């Protein structure tokens, strides 16, 4: 496996507070990685920096051998970095199908066309429908995104990012705000899609059951730095992670 994305000494400060403090972070090609850590650990800030929502104060982001630190969001998406959002970000007055189709139109550079009707692009609608099918949402295609249930909105958010055909997909808490019963089906769907398409995925997640059952590698963050990095088994045995993030099953020894 080769390195797909690497950050070197990445820094983001908000005033005096270092949200991301000289982080060296790596994603390997084809892996599903979980980013864990308590609130304020810097997980979302790290994803915001890599996806281009925020600009780094120092350090570098290298994606597939190219330094993308100064690139715009548009350029990073074209290079193959896509993301979903913690608080779902959809086009609420467009149908679920339109939401996905728009990402495809954008990927193909067709949104610049003023003179062709969207309806004329049959292959795009076909592909959008196929993507909804993969996410088991084809029956919701014509419903406005604003009218979907929370779990469906979460999936649609991921589906839009997936429609951009990324090489690296960041998912910011794909199961937050969803009932416990819905979590496993959502993660099963996402996991099956990214693994079958060999997309590298970095998932921010708080639910430890989800983290341990769906990821190949876990990166634990704490106060803007990386606390631990390893396989689920290694993380499960890591003392620092246990005390700081997960909490121990037995009371700690006196």
């Amino acid at each position: 496996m080769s390195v797909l994305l690497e950050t070197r000494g990445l820094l983001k400060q908000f005033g005096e507070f270092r949200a991301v403090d000289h982080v060296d972070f790596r994603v390997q090609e084809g892996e599903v990685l979980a980013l864990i850590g308590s609130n304020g650990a810097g997980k979302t800030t790290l994803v915001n920096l890599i996806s281009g929502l925020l600009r780094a104060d120092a350090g570098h982001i290298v994606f597939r051998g190219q330094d993308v630190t100064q690139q715009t969001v548009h350029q990073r998406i074209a290079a193959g970095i896509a993301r979903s959002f913690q608080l779902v970000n959809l086009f609420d007055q467009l149908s679920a199908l339109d939401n996905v189709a728009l990402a495809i139109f954008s990927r193909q550079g067709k949104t610049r066309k003023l003179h062709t009707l969207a309806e004329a692009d049959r292959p795009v609608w076909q592909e959008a429908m196929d993507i909804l099918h993969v996410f088991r949402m084809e029956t919701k295609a014509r419903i406005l995104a604003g009218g979907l249930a929370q779990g469906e909105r979460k999936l649609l958010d991921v589906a839009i990012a997936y429609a951009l055909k990324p090489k690296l997909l960041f998912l910011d808490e794909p199961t937050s705000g969803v009932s416990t019963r819905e979590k496993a089906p959502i993660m099963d769907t996402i996991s099956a899609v990214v693994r079958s398409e060999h997309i590298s995925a970095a998932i921010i997640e708080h639910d430890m059951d989800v983290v341990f059952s769906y990821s190949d590698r876990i990166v634990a963050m704490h106060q803007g730095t990386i606390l631990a990095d390893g396989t689920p088994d290694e993380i499960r045995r890591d003392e620092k992670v246990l005390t700081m993030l997960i909490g121990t099953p037995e009371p700690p020894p006196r």
Partner: protein
Amino acid sequence: MSVVTAAPMEHRSPLRSLGWAIPALVILVILPWVTDQYQTILLAYGLVMGIAALGFNLLLGYTGLLSFGHSAYFGVGAYTVALMVKYLGVTSMELFLAGAIVACVLVTAVFGVACVRYTRIFFGILTMALSQVLWSLAFKFFWVTGGTDGLRVPTPTLLGFVTGKGDKIAFLATAYYYYVLGVFILAVAVMWVIVNSPFGRALQAIRDNEVRAEFVGIQIRRYRWVAFMVSGVFTGLAGALWVPLNGLTTPDIMHWTFSGEIVFMTVLGGFRSFTGPIIGAIVFNYLKTYAVGYTVYWQGLLGLILVVLVLSLPTGIVGTADRLWARWRAK
């Protein structure tokens, strides 16, 4: 990946839209035969305002930007025609329209660069401020623009051979009316294609969620800028068509209160629908004409009507009609 047949969109297909477009068109074509010249010219004004509001609504309804400066582009269209008459001696209506389009592209390209950096109230204020700059130019450069006296525009030559020599009113009520109707149909068709194109979909995405639009790879400022230009050009085209009807252009049409009228028309008709601004403009044109004839306090009367309409029909005439129609069909 398994294959599921993609069904047509929930958006109106071209054929379904023709269902209401054809009867409307028939009425517009035969109306000059059944009403008097005054009514026909009044309707021509309504159609012209319909084009202006249609352009305006590409920004408000589809891109989510409320411009309070569209009088500027209407005025640029009108003054371009007047100045072409004054300095170049042009009489061809086609050249007028071409000149107005070129002038509006230039002005909106420059204004747009400044305006699309902002959204919401900041965008509105900036568009208004820029339109007031143009208004003050039209107002003060009287040796060029005629100041408050304005500039006269004689009846133009249509398609190179139809002239208004002789009875000007008859010309405006027949040949010119059909000319306006032709441009109106073309403008509506072009706008319909634009809002239903992938570009139009991208604008709606920007309206709904700016951040996410950026994260599907849409360069939002560039798209807003293009929308700004298209919108301004439509309104400018309306301005160019309006001058021969009015026979005169004055700085009033550059003033921000006229921008307010364009907003009024669009909200009246309903900015959430494609046809809303057109219906709103035509209705507003009648409302204003009869209100002016009825009372000197016509602005107060229109203000009152607007308050009542916004409170009782927040989705405008078309939005309300759609809802009533749906309810009636459900029975």
